[in-house]
């Protein structure tokens, strides 16, 4: 196990970590607003990837070019899901909320299979392909672009939440929805917006992933699990926290695979998660 192999692994884990983080960010945002975990988040990712694929297959649009379109589509999906489903379970017990989104996940996954079949789809010859070499270490260009894109999206999200009027309204609603309502902030609209933005994040992640990953109805499941861990690790509701947590997950995944055994890499991720939340139950950066 040479240093070169380890460094290579570190790079790979870092790049993938940013993508995990972006997927998790949407989840964290939604939770911060209304304390609902979206168990259909993986399916949102899947739909974003399919949207990107079809834009390429039918209109010849490269995934990078169709990114704004995908983000917009997912934004609308988030709002639609809020108004169609989430609005009705806001006051319900946690279990009912879990199962509402779980039912949505099963529904979306089956709908995708019914509509598009189970074939694995790949975007061929994207604009970004190949790899660059830095002193013997390889960095896949699609992966690099995906992680840079994820970071950019994160920065945008941060700016949106911290620096804009709307973002501050979102924060206010997350902190104390009654007080925010008293101040004239439309809670319903904030919630819908939260879902829209959260879904758009996943939309961007999906679009970026489609440059180098295959698409099929079940593709969201594996990513979703890691996203949940990342969100909980970073602290539910803490969006910057998920960036750090996503990177941790990505790096631990690859490094433990190299140093311990690939078969145990997720075990290590989960063990680290458990260790962290036992020491700090609210996650690395979460507030209670």
């Amino acid at each position, binding site marked *: 196990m040479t240093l070169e192999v380890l460094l290579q692994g570190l790079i790979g884990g870092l790049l993938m970590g940013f993508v995990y983080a972006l997927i998790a960010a949407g989840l964290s945002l939604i939770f911060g607003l209304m304390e609902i975990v979206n168990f259909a988040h993986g399916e949102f990712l899947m739909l974003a990837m399919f949207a990107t694929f079809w834009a390429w297959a039918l209109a010849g649009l490269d995934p990078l070019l169709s990114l704004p379109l995908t983000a917009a589509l997912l934004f609308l999906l988030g709002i639609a899901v809020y108004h169609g489903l989430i609005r009705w379970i806001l006051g319900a017990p946690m279990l009912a909320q879990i199962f509402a989104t779980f039912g949505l996940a099963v529904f979306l996954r089956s709908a995708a299979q019914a509509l598009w079949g*189970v074939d694995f789809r790949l975007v061929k010859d994207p604009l970004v392909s190949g790899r660059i070499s830095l002193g013997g270490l390889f960095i896949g260009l699609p992966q690099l672009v995906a992680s840079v894109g994820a970071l950019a999206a994160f920065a945008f999200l941060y700016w949106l939440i911290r620096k804009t009027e709307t973002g501050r309204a979102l924060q206010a609603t997350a902190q104390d929805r009654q007080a925010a309502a008293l101040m004239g902030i439309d809670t319903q609209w904030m919630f819908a917006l939260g879902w829209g933005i959260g879904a758009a994040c996943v939309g961007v992640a999906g679009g970026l992933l489609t440059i180098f990953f295959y698409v099929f109805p079940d593709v969201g499941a594996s990513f979703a699990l890691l996203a949940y861990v990342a969100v909980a690790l970073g602290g539910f509701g803490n969006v910057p926290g998920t960036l750090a947590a996503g990177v941790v997950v990505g790096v631990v995944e690859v490094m433990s*695979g190299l140093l311990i055994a*690939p078969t145990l890499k997720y075990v290590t991720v989960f063990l680290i998660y458990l260790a962290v939340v036992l020491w700090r139950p609210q996650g690395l950066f979460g507030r209670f």
Partner: protein
Amino acid sequence: MATRVTALVLALLAVIAPAAFAQTPKEVVIGVLYPLSGNAAQVGIDSANAVRLAVDIINAKHDLNLPLARGEGLPGLGGAKIRVIFVDHQGKPDVGQAEAERLITQEKVHAVFGAYFSGVTQTVAQVAERYGVPHLNAESSSPLLTERGLKWFFRTSPHDGHFSQAMFDYIRDLEKRRNVKFKTVGIMHEATQFGSDSAKVQEELAAKYGYEVTVKISYRDKATNLDAEVGKLKAANPDILLPSSYTNDAILFVKTAKNLDYNPKLLIAQNAGWTDPTFVKEMGKDVEGHITRAPFALDMAAKKPMIRQVNEMFKKLKDNSTGRDISDAPARAFTGFLTLADAINRAKSVSPEEIRKALVATNIPADQLIMPWTGVKFDEKGQNTGVRAILQQVQNGAYATIYPFELAAADPTFPLTPWKDRK
């Protein structure tokens, strides 16, 4: 006197009547179990389509040198047609068991067929054994299935033992041909029943032939990232890589290998992902030179034109909406189903014991098969002894049969071109 005659006539009627009423059945019903949802749904759907094609060939007149093709229905049963009930076992052994039982006891199928995954095939076989109903399996690869002493289980397909043996035979023959010596082997497999079974056999054979397994990687399927796995392979750099992966992970593996510049000299895959028709199409030149074991080869159409005809019919099936080529697993399903129908036909009855006896006596010659086998003939364990595993290599964007050398359509290329030299 009158009463005696009446009694005699009545007695005669009593004997004849049941015979007159005991008509041969109008149809033969077969239960087919496949994974029609979930990860392996593509293979399940393809295999179901292959069965549909087989049913059409049996029930209608076709000018093909295949069992039962030239007639309509089963002549041995007065032209009875075959009807299939398709069932989705969702990849779960307990669902397979429940469905097999339902098919046998509620739907009254005359035989069961399936089920792709060895774990599900196992539970289905147990049910069939319990009820004394023939179960024909066309594609499950676990060697254990024919080692359980089941009377009603028959398998037409080769199993992992055959396949892996062929791989190592090829390795040793290649060494002689090219005057090279391989020392180390790397095994990479999914942590599923298929992957684990495959890896176990490969490990045993490697030890038997004196190759050192320097790296053995098991990974959770549906991985989001294979950087660690490829990193370890690159570090160990075995002479030969033997992967066992389904399509999605196979795609991710090749892409990651390309990214990280991992160049195995020789790659021999345990089919699954590698024989998915879309795999070579999608991956293009990235998989040039990859070898896989494959019980079926489309390029054998050069020697057996019938294969091309069957493939054309398969592509035109109503349920084959994307016009996929027939590939490994569906081709085996096709062959297995025809074998079963042939046996029922020879049994001239739908009685389970008669069908079983007919299966035992099966002897289909090589020219009536689309598979490159020497025929279909079952041994006392229910395993087809006419099987032949072949190896194919991606050459110029399509699979070419390279082994056994006497069946080969092309010469094998060795070693694999490193990534930087691939155009």
